[in-house]
């Protein structure tokens, strides 16, 4: 395949560890209870509409978007609301959650459960955005930005390119890959729906080179759809970062502090695009998602379709349980994910994977002296100089941090991954960002 696209600044090639590329998506089934956080998005937590003792079905609205940048939250199971209170979530902080005891599996009648593919998009842009709002769709790649806002273009801005992000550059994760292979046509229709909402005819599904099956399947299907094409990108981390993807596909760079829409691009993760298809064509709220359970200490890695709110302990048990070797459980990928200690924490709309890692992989080595190799600056996809940021933080020269452009850091972790002296460069960058935001 020629014409392979990529970004030009930095990047790394970590070991892929894609153990589940050919494992079909399987149903995770129903746990006994689910814990549904009312904040699974950027912005204000949703307003809680239910109380203890209420009976809910799959798809029942539990909490209502509070303000513009917020999102509806729906029930992922049928049963009885046990309690509504703050519980420790995946972040380690207390979060308001609705605990539901699962009884049976009853769906709200408005959800279309038929398996056939609906192809006819008869809705107007306004209707589409309204449906996305009602279904509580948010960016499922990890940011959790409410999709209806992203799809409503502000006055005076013009978008000419929709990029569907099928790059799954985090090691271990294969959920997006499997989704593209198994639900290819739905994703293409989802892209057409956003095209329509945006009033454009130019969607590019970006896939990295190490997913030949997804590339082949989608290339075949997009031939019969006008305005949707496949763009193949190099396998390089962090190719799936929004800024890196726009640089690769549209050959544009988002200026510091601006949004993709400022350079005429909208980026949506393939998982989100599939959820958009289901929301618009099947009236299905966002109450389940695909995720990968894997890791070097995972006995039975797999890709699951999981109800939002499912405790991660349920999925860990399903995949063989914690082994002796497991020292860390990660939500998300190994490069950008968070480690969790509370295994009752629930899967949210944003959880792309659950990894069980051993010290062989996740163990931290002792920090040594910087040998000034400059590799951190060479791999930074923003072109920052992490060694300099670390030095400024250590020497307390915070007044110089702004010149080092640290606020542009995307926290991809390339610097800390690469550092041969094992200096926790990303930690310094994050500290520096906090320090600068305090000053503002």
């Amino acid at each position, binding site marked *: 395949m020629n014409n392979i696209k990529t970004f030009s*600044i930095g990047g*790394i090639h*970590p070991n892929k560890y894609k153990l589940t590329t050919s494992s079909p998506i399987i149903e995770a089934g129903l746990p006994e209870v689910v814990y549904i956080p009312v904040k699974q998005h950027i912005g204000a937590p949703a307003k809680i509409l239910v109380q203890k003792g209420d009976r809910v079905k799959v798809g029942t609205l539990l909490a209502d978007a509070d303000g513009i940048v917020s999102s509806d939250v729906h029930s992922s199971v049928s049963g009885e609301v046990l309690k509504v209170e703050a519980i420790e979530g995946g972040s*380690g902080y207390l979060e308001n959650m609705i605990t539901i005891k699962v009884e049976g599996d009853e769906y709200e009648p408005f959800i279309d459960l038929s398996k056939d593919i609906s192809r006819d998009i008869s809705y107007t842009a306004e209707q589409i955005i309204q449906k996305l709002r009602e279904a509580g769709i948010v960016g499922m790649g990890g940011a959790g930005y409410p999709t209806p806002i992203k799809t409503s273009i502000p006055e005076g801005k013009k978008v000419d390119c929709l990029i569907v992000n099928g790059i799954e550059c985090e*090691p271990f994760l294969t959920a997006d890959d499997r989704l593209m292979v198994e639900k290819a046509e739905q994703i293409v229709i989802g892209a057409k729906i956003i095209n329509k909402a945006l009033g454009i005819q130019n969607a590019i599904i970006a896939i990295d080179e190490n997913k030949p099956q997804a590339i082949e399947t989608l290339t075949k299907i997009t031939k019969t759809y006008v305005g949707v094409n496949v763009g193949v990108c190099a396998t390089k981390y962090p190719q799936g970062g929004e*800024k890196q993807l726009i*640089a690769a596909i549209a050959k544009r*760079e988002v*200026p*510091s502090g*601006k949004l993709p829409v400022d350079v005429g691009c909208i980026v949506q993760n393939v998982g989100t695009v599939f959820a958009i298809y289901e929301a618009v064509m099947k009236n299905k709220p966002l109450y389940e998602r695909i995720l990968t359970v894997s890791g070097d200490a995972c006995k039975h890695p797999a890709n699951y379709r999981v109800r939002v709110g499912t405790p991660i302990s349920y999925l860990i048990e399903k995949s063989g349980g914690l082994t002796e070797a*497991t*020292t*860390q*459980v990660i939500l998300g990928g*190994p*490069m*950008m*994910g*968070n*480690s*969790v*200690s509370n*295994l009752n924490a629930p899967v949210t709309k944003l959880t792309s994977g659950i*990894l069980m*890692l051993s010290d062989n*992989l*996740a163990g*931290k*080595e002792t920090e*040594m*002296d*910087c*040998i*000034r*190799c*400059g590799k951190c*600056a*060479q791999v930074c*996809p*923003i*072109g*920052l*100089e992490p*060694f300099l940021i670390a030095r400024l933080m250590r020497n307390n020269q915070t007044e110089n941090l702004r010149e080092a*452009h640290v606020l*542009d850091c995307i*926290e991809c*972790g390339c610097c*800390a*991954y*690469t*550092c*041969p*002296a*094992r200096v*926790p460069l*990303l*930690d310094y960058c*994050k500290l520096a960002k906090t320090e600068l935001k305090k000053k503002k």
Partner: protein
Amino acid sequence: MLKISTSPHMQSPVDTHRIMLDVIIAMLPAIIAAVLFFGLNALVVMTSSVAACVFFEYLVCKFWFKTRNTTRDLSAIITGLLLAFNLPSSMPVGMIILGSFMAIVVAKMCYGGLGKNIFNPALIGRVFLFISFPVQMTQWPKPEFLKFLNTDTQTAATTLGIIKHLDASTSATAISGKLPSYYDMFMGNIGGCIGEISALALLLGFVYLLWRKVITWHIPVYYVGTVFIITGIFWLITGETRYDPLTHILSGGLLLGAIFMATDYTTSPMTIKGQILFAVFCGILTVIIRLYSAYPEGVSFAILIMNAFVPLIDKYIHGRIYGQRS
């Protein structure tokens, strides 16, 4: 019991120790060439230099810094080898130990150890010996291929030493009788420091370093390229043998310096742009010293002078930042 830590939860398998090991592996061809041409004498020089460097670093860690023994990162071995590479095979062991002291204790540990020194330690050691013991440092035993017990006192001039004394009036036959062939220069059958003679061995090391991604190609190529272009221009204009660009590349310490010493992480700039600037100026200074100073060779001085500019280069030269394209 689960652990909590910050991302990333994976790290590259290449750590400081591995990088240093790779550099030592890259020096193996040159080590072998040194023994092949200068016999056991070369081995004595290298062993004493490495042993002294490691020992001095160990002493500093134990009795002065009172910290972790940093000799385990292998960097002292590299300094020892590089210092040995820059000495003639007849160098007395006492002087080598003195040079090692200068390199490790003064040029490296006095600044705080690995990663903190401004000047390349091995080059400081070499220049110290060069200035203190000019006689011993400019006696070049004649290379004798595969003659391991070399007790000969026969000496050979270095190629750069020969061309230093050439001028336009030297006749062509006189030149061809004195200068070694390109083939001998490439293989290493010439007089000189033990590690610099074989271009082939050094280039093999270069290829290994590139393959292992220890260094990028920029510093060596820009450094050697600058020397080639400047001497090439002189050569094209005058046609004199003393400007012959190929001789300038294949003789003296240029390849050794460009591949193993100008690329030293600690004493070279952090960004690629800065490294290019650094390398070009190393090249310019090398040519100026070789052609116009009292010394036939200028690589050590050129690199040391440019080492001093590294903090300045790092302050002003930065790579392109995403989204700042005008």
